[in-house]
């Protein structure tokens, strides 16, 4: 890696990346990491798409179905009470994890996508009208673009976009210029899934709140790498997915400031979200049940809370220094590969190395790496506007989690040399 590049990314030389974090002990908790793929030991570098699950999560899910399953909030019987307690305890765990003021501010959803849609539908349709503006950034995942686009189409509001620079940082001055009385929502990603950029959420919230504009943060990629404190960030909504956090798929959560959630109309109607129903009139439940129509994903919620306990049990300090070291090592190792160009060199980065290699299409790279047992993601990563911004059709992305090692980075680098050899 060139000196200039090192300086740019604030990445010093790697001393001993794994000295006080027992990454191999952690790997033992993830049975899938012992797999062989195409005859080679699996190197799983597609964690931004979904993370693998530790035994603890698998066991908790299994225990739920073996010993605790019943519908919640209804029965007076033992199992129903047990399941209800487990489910509500999971909510408390998530509230603690995000440092929400109370568990009433945590709504279970199917994931980040549904969390954002909930806000766009419920808050958006009640508060945003023709002529208003919704502000997002140029590095959003499609799931933080399309719900707002749909809202704008229906209401006549306008979607405005904060541009990003060549490094993949938002251009803060442009953001400030775009803020106005017309802006009714700022929706922005905490950590970009295709660039790895960490956005300055606290600063963004401060500026938006000066105009009384609520801020929604897409935290899907952030929570497995950074300690998130919604009160410290000051944001109004924070959306997360369990499956990107070593938990099961199909479950996630929305944090919402209580005063906002309270004022918002229900998102879906059905059982569990009502106080009383007659054909003349229905009254709705209190928070957070108001937003949880129908029988929820109980096993998922319990699995998610187990994953959070597992993950936070390791300790953020250890985790962050290990992950930083692996990411730094990856930038260094890959910078030595001829004709490799990084996409996304933001000042603050985590979890992701995106790149293009010579004129070789990422799809070809992905297939060749796969033959070596290495799982990476290739394509536009559901961020087509980012690809357009950098004038490329796609990138190859290696994304890391707490269980990845520098040896795996070496395997990736070796694989990429193989790609170059094949295509030379």
């Amino acid at each position, binding site marked *: 890696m060139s000196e200039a590049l090192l300086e740019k990314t604030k990445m010093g030389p790697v001393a001993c990346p794994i000295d006080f974090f027992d990454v191999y002990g952690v790997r033992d908790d993830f049975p899938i990491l012992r797999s062989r793929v195409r005859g080679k030991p699996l190197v799983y570098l597609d964690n931004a798409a979904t993370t693998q699950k530790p035994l603890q999560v698998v066991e908790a899910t299994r225990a739920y179905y073996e010993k605790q399953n019943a519908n919640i909030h209804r029965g007076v019987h033992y199992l129903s009470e047990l399941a209800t307690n487990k489910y509500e305890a999971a909510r408390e765990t998530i509230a603690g994890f995000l440092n929400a003021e109370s568990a009433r501010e945590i709504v279970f959803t199917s994931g980040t996508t549904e969390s954002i849609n909930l806000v766009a539908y419920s808050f958006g349709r009640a508060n945003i009208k023709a002529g208003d503006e919704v502000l997002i950034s140029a590095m959003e995942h499609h799931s933080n673009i399309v719900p707002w686009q749909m809202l704008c189409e229906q209401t006549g509001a306008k979607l405005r976009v904060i541009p990003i620079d060549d490094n993949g940082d938002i251009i803060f001055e442009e953001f400030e210029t775009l803020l106005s009385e017309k802006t009714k929502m700022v929706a922005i990603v905490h950590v970009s899934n295709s660039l790895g950029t960490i956005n300055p959420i606290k600063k963004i919230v401060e500026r938006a709140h000066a105009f009384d504009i609520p801020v929604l943060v897409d935290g899907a990629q952030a929570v497995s790498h950074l300690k998130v404190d919604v009160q410290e960030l000051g944001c109004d909504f924070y959306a997360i997915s369990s499956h990107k956090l070593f938990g099961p798929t199909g479950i996630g959560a929305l944090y919402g400031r209580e005063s906002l959630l309270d004022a918002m109309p229900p998102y879906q109607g059905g059982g569990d979200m009502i106080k009383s129903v007659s054909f003349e009139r229905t009254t709705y439940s209190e928070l957070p049940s108001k937003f949880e129509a129908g029988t929820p994903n109980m096993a998922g919620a319990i699995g998610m809370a187990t994953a959070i306990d597992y993950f936070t049990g390791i300790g953020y300090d250890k985790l962050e220094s290990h992950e930083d070291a692996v990411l730094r090592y990856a930038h260094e190792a890959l910078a030595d590969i001829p004709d490799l160009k990084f996409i996304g060199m933001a000042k603050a980065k985590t979890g992701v190395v995106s790149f293009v290699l010579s004129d070789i299409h990422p*799809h070809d790279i992905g*297939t060749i790496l796969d*033959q070596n047992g290495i799982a990476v993601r290739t394509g536009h990563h559901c961020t087509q506007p980012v690809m357009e911004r950098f004038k490329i059709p796609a990138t190859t992305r290696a994304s890391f989690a707490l269980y990845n090692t520098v040896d795996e980075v070496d395997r990736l680098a070796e694989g990429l040399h193989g790609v170059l050899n*094949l295509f030379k």
Partner: protein
Amino acid sequence: MDLRELYQQVILDHNKNPKNFRSLEHPTCASEGYNPLCGDRINVALEVEDDVIKDVAFTGSGCAISKASASVMTTLVKGKSVPEAEEVFRQFQALITSDLNAPVDVQEAGKLAVFAGVREFPTRVKCAALAWHTMQAALAEEDKKISTE
């Protein structure tokens, strides 16, 4: 399998120096193919006169497999009648979707045989087929975008 079976020299050569990779000045029909999975985008334009493909060319961006497939396709259908071109398309389709263990008649498959390796890579079959479906759409005078998804 050996990656060399998928990325045969012929495919790599076509990828590097694709044939008929250009725009047509007077196309009689054209279509755009798009694979939303990987973002591959290809335009196929044809000049058809009296049911004969006088010229065919493609532009766009894609992986080595999709580009080589488009390149080989243009060399195979140029000068052929539309029904003949459609027959080649059927041959190609039969080849890439045939059973993995079915032997490939290299004589019959001719230049298409290099794509037999794609059968082992289900996620890549769409890459190989994109240009062909796009040509088919153009020939069907379907003006709308087609998609392999």
